[in-house]
């Protein structure tokens, strides 16, 4: 067993375990931060897989994203601290079955598919960055720009949906 396998498995198990914690704790803030640590562990997996840029990016982005998630949990829940042990689940059996089936199916595919020989040589981090940059601003420029445009649209649309229009406010009162 190589060191890479060991670290992959270690960070991976941490990621899955934190993922499970998300749905087991009663405290909403803990939920959000457990998800953050799950994502951070995934970022660490990227680093193990020598995708330095992606790993660091994942670790950076998720910190902010999940913190925002935490504040939304606090806003929208009556009992964010989970002291009341409120139950927030439904269709338990169905979802558990679906989860297990999804897990097994994915494992089945990954084990039985023929993935071909594994690559051993990986470009250096510098080289990767350069390649990625050229890819983004060359062949895949259109896709990248569409992604950028999509996120801008989503930002504007989400804000428009969320903001209460002053005119509407007068109606309500």
């Amino acid at each position, binding site marked *: 067993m190589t060191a890479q396998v060991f670290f992959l498995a270690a960070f991976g198990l941490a990621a899955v375990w934190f993922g499970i914690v998300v749905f087991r704790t009663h405290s909403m803030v803990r939920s959000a931060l457990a998800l953050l640590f799950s994502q951070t562990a995934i970022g660490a997996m990227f680093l193990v897989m020598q995708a330095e840029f992606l790993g660091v990016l994942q670790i950076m982005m998720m910190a902010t994203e999940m913190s925002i998630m935490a504040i939304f949990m*606090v*806003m929208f829940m*009556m009992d*964010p601290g989970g*002291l*009341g042990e409120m*139950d927030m689940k*439904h269709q338990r059996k169905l979802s558990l079955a679906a989860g297990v089936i999804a897990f097994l199916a994915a494992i089945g595919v990954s084990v039985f598919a023929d993935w071909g020989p594994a690559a051993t040589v990986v470009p250096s981090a510098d080289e990767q960055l350069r390649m990625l940059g050229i890819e983004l601003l060359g062949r895949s420029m259109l896709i990248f720009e569409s992604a950028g445009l999509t996120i801008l649209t989503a930002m504007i649309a989400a804000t428009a949906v969320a903001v209460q229009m002053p005119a509407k406010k007068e109606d*309500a009162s």
Partner: protein
Amino acid sequence: MFGARQSTPVALFAPLRRLVAGAMARDLRALVVPGADVALAAGLDLAAAGLALAEGPRQANVLLVILPLPAAMLKAASVAYAQMPRPRAVLVLGEGEITPLPEADATGAASQEGLEKAVATLRRAFAEGAFATEVSDFDAPALQTRIEYTCPMHPEVVSDEPGNCPKCGMNLVEAGGDGGHEHHHAAAQYTCPMHPEVVSDEPGNCPKCGMNLVEAEGDGGHEHHHAAAQYTCPMHPEVVSDEPGNCPKCGMNLVEAGGDGGDGHHDHAHHQHHGQDGEDAQVGWLERIEPGFMSMIELTEGTPRSSDGLQMEWIDVPFGPLFPGLPGGLTLDLTLDGDTVAGVQVGSAVAEDWALPDGGLDPDTFVAALGVQMRLSPVSYRLLACRALQAAAGITPLPDEDMLHDGALARERLAERLLWLAQMGRQLGLPRIESRAAGLSRAIREAAPSEIDALRGPLSGLVESLRKTPFLARRLRGIGRLDDQGVWSGPGGAGSDAATRLTARLDGVMADLAELKRAGGISTPQTPDVTGVGGHGHATVETARGPAHLHLELSAGRIVSASLDTPSNRHLPLVETVTCQAELADALVAVASLDLSPWEVRA
């Protein structure tokens, strides 16, 4: 030392302990009761005496008490003392009662000299007694005797007063459960989230890990909302649970409650709705909700709504009476919706009832008492009382003397405006302004006429630098705007906001300087001789906060009735206007910009 920290006497660590104790003795952080402003008004220079100001009780190791103080303030001080980490000490300046606080570790007169001596004593006490093998604990009586009220749904909501739960609007019940609430609480069991084997009938802390106990699942309080099949214990009918399992009391298997399991409170209500109109889609979809589901819409129904329609957690946060950004003694209880102020309650922990005793007061006692009570502006109120007495007795004051009294008044006004500036500097995070204003305020309060000329330069320098501080005016603009026809009588006038009030006070500083020059000298007022005289008198004095009025009635040389009208007392209701729906920081700035003195508030 009473507040010593417990430590085992291991010889190996003795030098380290000495080192730490020595460092503590030279790094004293004081929490000032009633407040840093009162220390300043008493002419104390804490930094020069070697005391740094602590941000809050958790960061303090010295509780500096400036006496005399009313009981309410002492109670708050004892709670703060209980929150201070050990080793901690009490330093008392002045004369008076300090119960329920523990015995003082150092005492002194309320003067700079007394403070410095007391600090020296305190340093010795810290160096020698910061650590002890035997320590006695201090529990603030105020923390022990109170009855806590809690929400049956939200055990984390604990309040000192009965009322409604800020989260769901339900009535709060007395923690511990008595009389009328039996049906809710007879079955309520509290358990530790970490140690399920810990079960208690009362809320409290887990004996194993100290965590707060939470209500065990399936207690009475949840009954209405779980309309599902319920399970109960054949031996203990009060044990009701949504899930099959064991009875927490006797461990027997729970059995399904007979027949009406699916017909709880909740469902009945909806059947009725259904019967009435049958078509109501709003009710229709609720029908299909899974059994056992707790509807948030129902729970939050009827709770107060915030004006922006986006209600976040409502929390009650006390600011004061020992909050560093506000005048000491002012209690500001804010209800926050997120970080917006949704409700406010303002009061004073140092207010006194101004009722006169039966048979009246003799003038000397009255004037002295007024001077003691109005801690921040004693001269103004003494002068007010003296002038009212003169008016009542029909004495015409000598113009020269009156002029000198005006000088004293202007000097105190100046000191007070600077005191406010120091407070504002502290709140806005301008330490340079804070220390300069505080130093000048201290210097001017007791300055002789000849010394004031020397202070003129630094004063106008401070005013100039405040006018030039970048972003200060922008920071204050639009905050705490007052109505055009309100009761505001302070600087800035009607319709002012925090920025215009600051400008008005700075103008006031220059005007006071001019007034001092015109007065030409200073003399503090003496109680006029009114032996045997009777009559009515009224006087008005312009303080830094606005005009103060006193109307009094003399009968045979004694004051039999007095009605005092102070600017702070008048302005107190304005707090609600200026904080309503403001962001928290803005609300605090707005309150500070009103310059309320809690001492002038009537109990």
